[in-house]
Each structure stands twice: as C-alpha cells, then as structure tokens.
C-alpha cells in the first residue's frame, strides 16, 4: 500500500530573504528581488541584473554549497518547531537527501593562476578540492556529514527541473515505504562570470538593466528574456504516519509527481508542449486526481516568449475550459530563474502563501501577451483557499517535471490532515 508523504519542514534562501516570514511577506507584497549585480564586475555583459541572495560569511568557494547547507539547516529547524526532534526521532541510516544541483563552479580566476603556473596546480592550491572546479556533489557531502547521515544521497542534474525531480524522487521513495525521512530540494547559483556570460551568449537573458525590478515579466508582451536568480529550497519530507507519531507540524502533503521528455529540440520547448502535458498528466495520475481538483498552478513562467506560450498551451490542453478558472502565478517574476533550485523554492513559495489562504502574484504583467490569455494573478496577491496545487518545472534540454501538493488551513493546528 502506498504511504502518504507529509511536508514537515521548509527552508529557503532567496533574493527576497532567508526566513519564511520574510520570503512570504515579499511574495505577497509583490516585491521584486531583482537588482543590479554587485557580487562581481560584469564587464561588458549585456545583462547586468540578477536576483542575488544575501548571506553571512561564506564557508565555501561555491556559494550554492552555502545556500544548500543554510536551507537544509532552516528546514530541519522548521521541522523541529513541533513534536520530537527530527534528528532524535530518525536514526541516521533512515535519513537521506535528494538534491538538485547546478553546474560545477568553474573559477576563471583559478584558471588564470593555473595557466600562469604552466598549467600545473599552484603550490598554495595543492590540497584544495575546489581549485578550478567545485564538484557538484560537494553540497550533498557537507549536508550528509553535518548530520552524520549514512546513506546514499541522490544528486539530480536535470537542469531547471532538477529540484522538482529531487522532490519527486524523494516523494516516490517515501510513498513506496522505502524511506522514512528525506531532505529534498535544490540549490544553485549561476551568478558567476562564466555562468552569466554563457546565458548572455545564448541571448536568453533580459537586458532591461535600467529597470531591474521590472525586468522579469512572465506572460507580458514586452518581456525580453529571463533574469538569473540564485538560492536554495529544501523541504523535509516524512512518512505521514511517522510525522504524526513524532507530533510534527504538517505544512502539506506531496501527492503527485510526473516527468517526461519533450524529445524535440536542444534549445526550444516543444511548440505544443508535449513533454509538459505528459509530465502534468502523469503527476495528476500519480495523485489520483482529475484536472478539476487543481485550484492553483505555480507556473514555470520564465519570462521567455517560447516558454510562456508553450506553458499556457499545455495548461489549456490538460485542463480544457477549466484552465481559464485556475489562478496561475510565476514566482520567477519576483526572484528570477533559480535554475536547479527553482522548483523547490517555487514549491515553498506556493506552500507558505497557500497556508495563509493566499496566492502570490505574477508581477510586471502590464501588457498581457495575447497568446497567454489565462488568469496569471497579475500584479497583486489574491485571497483564495487552495486545496490541491500544481507546480511546474521545465528544463532547457526538454526535461519537464511537475508536482502536485495538497494544502490545508493549518492555522492554530499542528496537524490538520
């Protein structure tokens, strides 16, 4: 028999803040976390804006390692807000991690030193495991070591769908009864010289540098590309019965997951949204839900013409006439695109707003694209009870992933399921 999967802890490092109250306040106010990039000089790059996170002193050269570790610690602390401590309740061998990660950090500053030393590792860098590149699994290693967990973490690299796939895989493992508790989510930062330059070279980014706050405008006719963001989102997922037994506060429940390939183009989404449709359909089937059960969609909503139109088409195809009645919003309008962390942070955004009976807006939607003619909760948050919602993530390269989550009005109750 399938086990039920509870969400009992949330941790997010975002351009709108690193605590759940700050993040929620920013989302519901419709505040943008996008600004001029200040972490490094951007030289002559055409895009000079991004959604940067602010954290304390860095412990790792690759900032996404710090983001992931901080989000994991926040999620565990949040899971410990009620009931027996998570780390006391579960034995180390019953704890694991499912993490979506971005590209290895390739440090151009190291490369220059390497070249100057006849392409040998400089003496003072010998023993530095992160010289030139920081391995992508480093964040998982640090988290597993921090908590003394003894199992194999799963490291997902399906690009912009990685965090959603990481959460989906954790959901499946707990649902099958093969795991008790898994930390799941994603961490990423492409806000480094090579990362930003790569996206600029692909002409994928907004160059609306004079108006950073208005630059990410999903579903708007005047959009000119996406804005890079960074951050991490981690969720504590537990077997529902175990979560109840330890007296945990339950934020919601993951009930469905599906993914699919476009099998279409290296750079463009399938024009009819084939992979997106299949992923959403599979997520609904896993959840044993009909399209009319969904009362909100957190869109992938990148602010690129091709994605926004494709996603709109896919939603219409799956939901039919009902599509016009479902509120849809894009968290990326406020945070930018968090790439391998996007799915987790956006899921958390939907949960923390939904638990307050609210849906966050899609900001900067002033001139709707006629091909994007659904209800995108333009510019202002909306009070609405959400029971089941869908969260979409679609990757460059044609991997499409979707989660279905169940929310409850948990005010004043630590277990409303």
């Amino acid at each position, binding site marked *: 028999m399938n086990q039920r999967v509870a969400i009992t802890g949330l941790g997010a490092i975002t351009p709108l803040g690193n605590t759940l109250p700050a993040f929620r306040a920013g989302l519901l106010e419709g505040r943008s976390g996008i600004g001029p990039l200040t972490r490094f000089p*951007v*030289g*002559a790059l055409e895009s000079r804006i991004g959604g940067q996170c602010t954290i304390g002193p860095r412990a790792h050269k690759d900032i996404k390692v710090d983001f992931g570790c901080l989000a994991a610690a926040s999620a565990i602390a949040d899971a410990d807000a009620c009931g027996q401590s998570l780390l006391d309740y579960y034995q*180390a*061998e019953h704890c*694991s991690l499912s993490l979506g990660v971005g*590209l290895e950090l*390739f440090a*151009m*500053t190291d*490369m*220059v030193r*390497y*070249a*100057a030393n006849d*392409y040998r*590792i400089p003496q003072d860098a010998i*023993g*530095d*495991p992160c010289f*030139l*590149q920081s*391995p*992508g*699994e480093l964040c998982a290693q640090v988290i597993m070591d921090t908590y003394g*967990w*003894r*199992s*194999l*973490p799963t*490291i*997902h*690299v*399906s*690009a912009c769908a990685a965090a959603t*796939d990481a959460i989906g895989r954790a959901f*499946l*493992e707990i649902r*099958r009864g*093969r795991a008790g508790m898994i930390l799941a989510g994603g961490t990423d930062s492409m806000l480094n*010289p090579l990362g930003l*330059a*790569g*996206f600029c*070279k*692909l002409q994928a980014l907004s160059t609306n540098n004079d108006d950073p706050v208005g630059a990410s405008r999903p579903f708007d006719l005047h959009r000119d590309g996406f804005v890079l963001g960074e951050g991490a989102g981690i969720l504590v997922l537990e077997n529902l019965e175990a979560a109840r037994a330890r007296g945990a506060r339950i934020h919601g429940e993951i009930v469905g997951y*599906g*993914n*699919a*390939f*476009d*099998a*279409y*183009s*290296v750079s463009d989404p399938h024009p009819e949204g084939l*992979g997106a449709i299949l992923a959403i359909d599979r997520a609904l089937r896993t959840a044993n839900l009909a399209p009319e059960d969904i009362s909100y969609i957190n869109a992938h909503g990148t602010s690129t013409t091709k994605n926004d139109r494709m996603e709109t088409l896919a939603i219409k195809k799956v939901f039919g006439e009902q599509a016009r009645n479902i509120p849809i919003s894009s968290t990326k309008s406020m945070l930018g695109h968090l790439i391998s962390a996007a799915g987790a942070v956006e899921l958390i955004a939907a949960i923390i707003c939904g638990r307050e009976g609210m849906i966050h807006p899609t900001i900067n939607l002033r001139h709707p694209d006629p091909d994007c003619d659904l209800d995108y909760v333009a510019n202002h948050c909306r009070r609405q009870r959400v029971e089941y919602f869908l969260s979409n993530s679609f*990757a460059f*390269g*044609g*991997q499409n992933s979707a989660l279905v989550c169940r929310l409850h009005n948990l005010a004043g109750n630590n277990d409303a399921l």
Partner: protein
Amino acid sequence: MDQEPGRHTRDPIVITGFGLEVPEALLRPAASGATDDYSHDCRPGEFLKQKKTLKFMSKQDRLAVNAAGHALKSAGLTDPERLGATGVFLTVGYIPFDFAVAAELCADSTEAGRFSMAKFTTSALEKINPLLAFACLPNMPAHHIAMNFGINGEYMITYPDLPQFYLTLNEAVARLRDGCVSRALVGAVADQNNFLVANHYRKTAPALTGKLVDAAGFMVLEKESSARSRNATILARLADLSIHPRQTSPPSHAIDIAEIATGPARLIIELAAFLIRDEPAFRHDLKAWGSETFSRWEKP
C-alpha cells in the same frame, strides 16, 4: 533502509538489450599489445534523426547516443512507436571541458597576470561558440537520447559516479515494478579524458592519472513477462539489488579507485564482460558514502 527489497521471483527484471562505447584498450587484454589510451569518441551517425544536431553534441553526448542506440537495437526496439513509454535513467560523469577552449578563454581574459572581467566579456566572449554551453550541460546526453529515439517517457538524471548509477538503476527497477514505465533504458556516460575531469581526479585520486576511461554503457531493462510477450532475447536476470546503509561505520565518501577509473559506467562494463563469460551468475559490490551496495545477475 533497504532501497530495493531483494529478490522478485514472480516477474523478474531482465536485460534484453546492451550497448557499449568504450576504448579498444579496455576490450583487449594488456598482453595483446594494446596501448593504454583510454580516450574514446565515436560518431553516432547511424542513430541521428537529424544530422545537423551533431554540431550541438559533445563527446559524452555522442558516446551516450551511440551506446543507447546499440542497446535499443540489440533489444529489437528500433521502432519509435514502441519507445514512447520507455523511461531513461542516466548517470553522467563530472563535467568535461576541452583544454584548448579553456586555454583560449584564459589567454583572452588575462590582464597583468590577473583575470579581467572586462577583457573576458569582450575579447574572450567574442570567440566563444554559443554552442559551447550545450556541450557542458549534464542533462544534454539525456536530451539527445530522447530526441533521437523519440522517447517521451519518464526519466532520472544523476551525477557523477557509480554510487549514483546504483541509485538510478534502483529507481528504474522501482518504476518498472510500479508500472510507470514499460521499459527502462538505463545507462551511464563519462567523458573523462579532458583537462577539467583530469584535474578533479588529480586533486582527489592522483593514482588515477592516465587511467581515466571515456565510457558509455546502456542496457534495456523490462519485466520478464514483457520480454517474453514480444519474444525478446533475455540476456540476464536481475536476481538481487540492495543499497543498504552500514550501521556502525562512520560516513565515508571514498570509493575504490578501480570504481572511479571507468566512471559511472563501471557496472555496465562489468556486466558486458559477464555476458560473454561462461559463468551463470555475477555479483557486483560497492562500498561508498557509508552504504553497502550490491547487485546480482543471473543468466537465464
């Protein structure tokens, strides 16, 4: 946490297709006079739906498409109509980067012995082929497989080594059992003979210098009942698969050096050797990240 509950005798998971792309040096015994050149590349022309997509493909993309194509072909699954519900479960190695490209980038980004963002974003960036970005992304081998073979099924893409491949194999088996996929194309690929991956191992496992192998391996897995219903040849049966945390040992990320040299494709390479040996069964063990992992395979 036993991640795959042991033996399933009622409808076992079987291998019906196999494809490898490995260097000659790995296939010949050392005494045959073969060199120790473990670099390898291929042209997947036979399997490309559109030849022009070759320009988007990196070495690991080419290796992956060829190995996957051979696996599907040997399983008798060349008709795209039959591949829709096939899942792709793939582990990719560390991100490769060509020395020549990196050196040029570096030379064009250096000013007074230091990295200059101003120079990088003018002279260096002008020379970068935009397609370079595609070659670096770890999800691209999966994309090229899906696109060339018309696969819209479910997927899981992990990174960077053999322990992750075991988790990926485990998930493929679970989704076959759950009925989410009718067949699973399970594989691994790593382009390791480039300066960036070599640099990684120089830092973490210096003994491997000169021993890194470029390899891709794929197998087609399905339930035995499915294989029999389409009269497919059954090459081997998965008798057992277990991923189990050790109770007492401290966490350890280290894995045997021999497990690294061939990257995440090692199990598939060893399975290929087993299939041509006159042995009824094969067991592969792996200790990593504080877990004890093994798989056992039997010939029909």
